[in-house]
């Protein structure tokens, strides 16, 4: 155990986005804490599932904090922000980690402003500088065409962590794992903003795209909604999920929830099959983390082949039925 006043790395879970995102965040916190010889704290502001609570309790964190009553309304992230600001002023962390999700991108920059800290968004990796014990953060720039490594010269740094970049590792719990409850005295309102409508996440038992190990994704080249039935069949066969490019989502063939890319999800499956997707940089940035990529496209010059292991030049309407056949026949 470190001495009590060693620095604190605080991972903040702002909503119940499944166990995996939170565990990635804590994994990032452990990496940073090792380099800084710091303690890992986890602050939970949202109401989270039992599963996630158990995951956090066994994540090897030194300190656990929760807000009571928990915060529910993501739309009014200003409230979440103020509560986190208040807690940070008390705990004085050296590093604050948030997921680079809706809430994180909305409050990360503002939290840094309020705490006079530096802000690193979309962090993909954390390392230590060779000469001193400063942290280096890797993040994408130029829309993912390049990456940069930055260090912070501030006493406090707020980091949002890109999904699917840190691998949670099971650790034995260290020290006491009791929760400290911090009373939330903020009213659950933010002056001026009110949710008046919208559509929640579509219900259904479909596997979460981010957690699928196989993704069959379609783009404008699929041509219509019916075409996606073939992708669904292939995905079903491989125990995977269907993804899509923005063009296919905008065309209304598939819901927004399955969009991959800069304004959609970041995924890193074992296998990504891109069908009728040209490979625009905004799409690639969401899927380059895939271990294996197969691209099917009529245009042999399509940029998607540049990130693929295996390329099939051809019409998906001929290739997919043949592929489904070939996979069904266990030769």
């Amino acid at each position, binding site marked *: 155990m470190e001495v009590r006043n060693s620095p604190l790395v605080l991972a903040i879970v702002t909503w119940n986005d499944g166990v995996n995102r939170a565990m990635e965040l804590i994994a990032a916190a452990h990496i940073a804490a090792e380099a800084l010889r710091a303690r890992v704290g986890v602050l939970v502001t949202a109401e989270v599932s039992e599963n996630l609570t158990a995951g956090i309790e066994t994540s090897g964190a030194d300190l656990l904090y929760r807000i009571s009553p928990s915060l529910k309304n993501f*739309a009014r992230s*200003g409230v979440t922000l103020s509560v986190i600001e208040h807690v940070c002023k008390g705990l004085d962390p050296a590093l604050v980690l948030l997921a680079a999700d*809706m809430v994180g991108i909305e409050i*990360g*920059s*503002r939290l840094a*402003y309020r*705490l*006079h*800290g*530096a*802000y*690193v*968004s*979309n962090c993909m990796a954390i390392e230590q500088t060779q000469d001193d014990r400063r942290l*280096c953060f890797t993040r*994408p*720039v130029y*829309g993912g*065409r*390049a*990456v*940069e*490594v*930055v*260090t*912070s*010269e*501030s006493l406090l740094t707020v980091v949002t962590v890109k999904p699917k970049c840190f691998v949670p590792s099971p650790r034995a719990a260290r020290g006491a794992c009791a929760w400290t409850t911090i009373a939330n005295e903020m009213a659950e309102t*933010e*002056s001026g*903003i*009110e*949710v*008046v409508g*919208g*559509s*929640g*996440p*579509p219900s259904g038992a479909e596997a979460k795209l981010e957690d699928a190990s196989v993704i069959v994704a379609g783009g404008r080249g699929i041509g219509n909604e019916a075409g996606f039935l073939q992708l669904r069949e292939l995905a079903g066969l491989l125990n995977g999920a269907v993804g899509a490019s*923005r063009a296919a989502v*905008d065309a209304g063939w598939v*819901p*927004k*929830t399955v969009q991959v890319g800069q304004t959609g999800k970041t995924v890193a499956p074992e296998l990504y099959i891109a069908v009728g997707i040209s490979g625009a*940089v905004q799409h690639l940035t969401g899927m380059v983390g895939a271990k*294996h990529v*197969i691209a099917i496209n009529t245009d042999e010059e399509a940029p998607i082949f540049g*990130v*693929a*292991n*295996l*390329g*099939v*030049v051809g019409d998906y309407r001929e*290739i997919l039925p*043949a*592929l489904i056949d*070939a*996979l069904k026949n266990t030769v």
Partner: protein
Amino acid sequence: MQIFVCVKDAIDWNLSTKDFRIDRVSHEPTVSFARYRIDEYDEIALEVALQVRDRSGGTIRALSVGSEATEDILKHALSMKADAATLIEAQLSVEDKVGLLGAAIRRQGPFKAVLCGLMSSGSGTGTTGPGLAEELGVPCISNITAIEAGPDRWRVRRETSEAFEELAVMPPFVGTVTNAECNLPRVPTMKDKIRAFRQRVEVLRPADLAPYSSGYARSRLRIVRRYVAHSSRECRKVGGDAVEKAREVASYVRRILPQFT
């Protein structure tokens, strides 16, 4: 009723992707034939603002911190029919930009909304919009795709990771804008371009806005290195007819997915 739209210049990737490199010392891109254009998210933010004005009146002012060359980007905003444009001539880090933009907005003020892109296509940090909300002391709404002005409350539609949300907000506020079918940027006509060419861009210098600073004033990031991320994948193209291609893909899939035998 005034709406500010913060715009910046970005590399035009349609024209200059192939030989994209990053200079080891300056960390800046070096592209032969580099063309600059308005950042794609900012063009969308401007479109959203223009749609509000076209329906409900008011004025749209485009605002940019940049160099003399950035004037072209502001002329583009004028050709899309922004009403006015201000250039703050300075080369600054994002931390200082927020203070400077805030000072310029306060000076040209009162406003109903300040719109920014979700993130810039260069550094892509998404710092500026939310930072400006702090600087100006107003609420921040991210991921906006459409806005409708009302007599008191405004309606804002925004994307969430799962779907969308309609918010009612009491202006003034800061918003960051993302793309959608409903906000494809308008393409200026030749006539609009000529008109914009003659229009004046107001130029300010940091000294005109002093003193300014922001919550980031004491914080800094230092770039250690920046490099082009090359894909390490060697794409093997399969040959033969559709059935042969499919067989080869199937055997590849079987090899990498041991659970699928």
